[in-house]
């Protein structure tokens, strides 16, 4: 039940982590940050075969996107990588929440920054 985390930077030097979950995501992921703004795009109602997409966000804090029923999450943290500790705190909080909600256990890998 491992969650694989691949850390990189987005094109504005914000920390971006690609998570690969051990099981497909369910709607429970939408509640992981109570303060987050949650947007669910119900693409499945518009296009045959499409799946529903979600974004959890808080300006300057995080932008977490994924697909319900899929195993991939793309999370971008902080205003910039220079935010340092604040950014790491949010990442730790997110990963702790993933583990405590029994989505899996985080294992981190590092890859070359963009």
């Amino acid at each position: 039940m491992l969650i694989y985390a691949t850390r990189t930077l987005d094109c504005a030097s914000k920390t971006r982590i690609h998570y690969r979950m051990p099981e497909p995501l369910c709607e429970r992921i939408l509640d992981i940050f109570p303060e987050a703004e949650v947007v669910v795009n119900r693409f499945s109602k518009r296009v045959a075969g499409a799946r529903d997409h979600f974004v959890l966000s808080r300006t300057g804090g995080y932008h977490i996107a994924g697909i319900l029923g899929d195993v991939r999450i793309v999370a971008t943290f902080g205003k910039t990588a220079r935010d340092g500790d604040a950014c790491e705190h949010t990442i730790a909080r997110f990963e702790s929440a993933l583990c405590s909600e029994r989505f899996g256990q985080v294992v981190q890998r590092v890859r070359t920054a963009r």
Partner: protein
Amino acid sequence: MPVYDIPFQLDAPHRRCVVGGEPMLFHCHHYNTFLQRTIQQDADFVDSRPFLVGAAAEVAFAQFSSLFARVDAIADRKRLATSLYQWAGLGTFDLTNLDDTGGEVRTENSHYAMAWRAKFGRSNRPVCDFASGWLAGTLAAIYGLSAGSFSVEHRSCSACGDSPTCGFRLTREAPNYTVFNPVGTGALTEHRPQAIPATPVDYDGILEALTGMEIVGDTNGQIPAFGVYLTRHYANYYNRISFEFERNLHALLGAQGIEVASPLLIEAGHVCAFNTFGGIMTSPEWDALIKPSLKTREDWVHGIVAAINALGWGRWQVTTLSETEAEFVIHDDYESTGYLAMYGTSDHPISYLAQGAVAGVMNLVYHGDVASNPEFTAEYYNRLFKTEGSYAANCLTSKAQGDEVTSFRVRRAVAEAALYEAV
């Protein structure tokens, strides 16, 4: 997320979005800054500031003069202007301290400053020419004055690294930029879509889904989406700065000026395709909405063309398609529509963004195997566009030259000299 009340009109039949009579479309920060740097630095003997600032003043003045016809109070006008700026992902402004004599304004959130630092690092000169002109045009409209009623000085820029904010001073005096006549939406055609190859891609469903998404600025006036920072920018701003760049080069160098300008502007189209299309095709949104219906690489081309139709760039079609070559047809491409309205019929193709973008689609899908989820690095860019087997586009027809549609044939380039050959 802020709640917006923007008088936005989706013109779905023409694949356009219009606000206050000005067509607005999506482009990412890579294209915005690359195009600006191309104009400012790749031909630095062209005095570009007057038209970079003037183009922004033009579109802002035209848009708000139209919108303010139904808004009387100055405070309400300022609120609408700042809200629209933030909604569009251009940053944030507080205009309360400006009056009909001008004044000073600062912001911590400027799209161009943020984007420049992200893409190129520290700048040795202020980069917010768009914001400068937007302020001048907007303030004139707020107070019901004529275009060009204010000069504008960009006094500090966070892209330079010596200030956390961008600062501007507006003064009620003769403008220190070019004042252009706004052209609005231009003349649009009745689209007659052409037959396309069979594909499982649901063009209409994708258009409906993407145009239904809430892609708007956050509290910092940023739109992080598809792995880039999007803006819903002014079509006529891109048009004016691109065509003034070309016309200035032509005035200085004659026909050679066009030969200098066109590959530079097409290259900006490559950068746009690489980052925006590449970002879309590797995003969770793509995986959720479009990827489930893709079976072949040809479907990947159809998928991204379907998505492009939601960007406000006109109606895009791919009418023949194989790994060997493809033809793209664009109804009311925004460059041609703008050119015709600004300058009349052209004697040469001018849809540079589109020309670079269609080559980019083919390079991403066939030459770069974007389906393998690559890293979007400089090396990958160079492999896509500058190696043997890279695709390049030739213009077949041009709306700006009087044709019904703009169209391109895209093939693998055989020689550098053939890259930008116009048929």
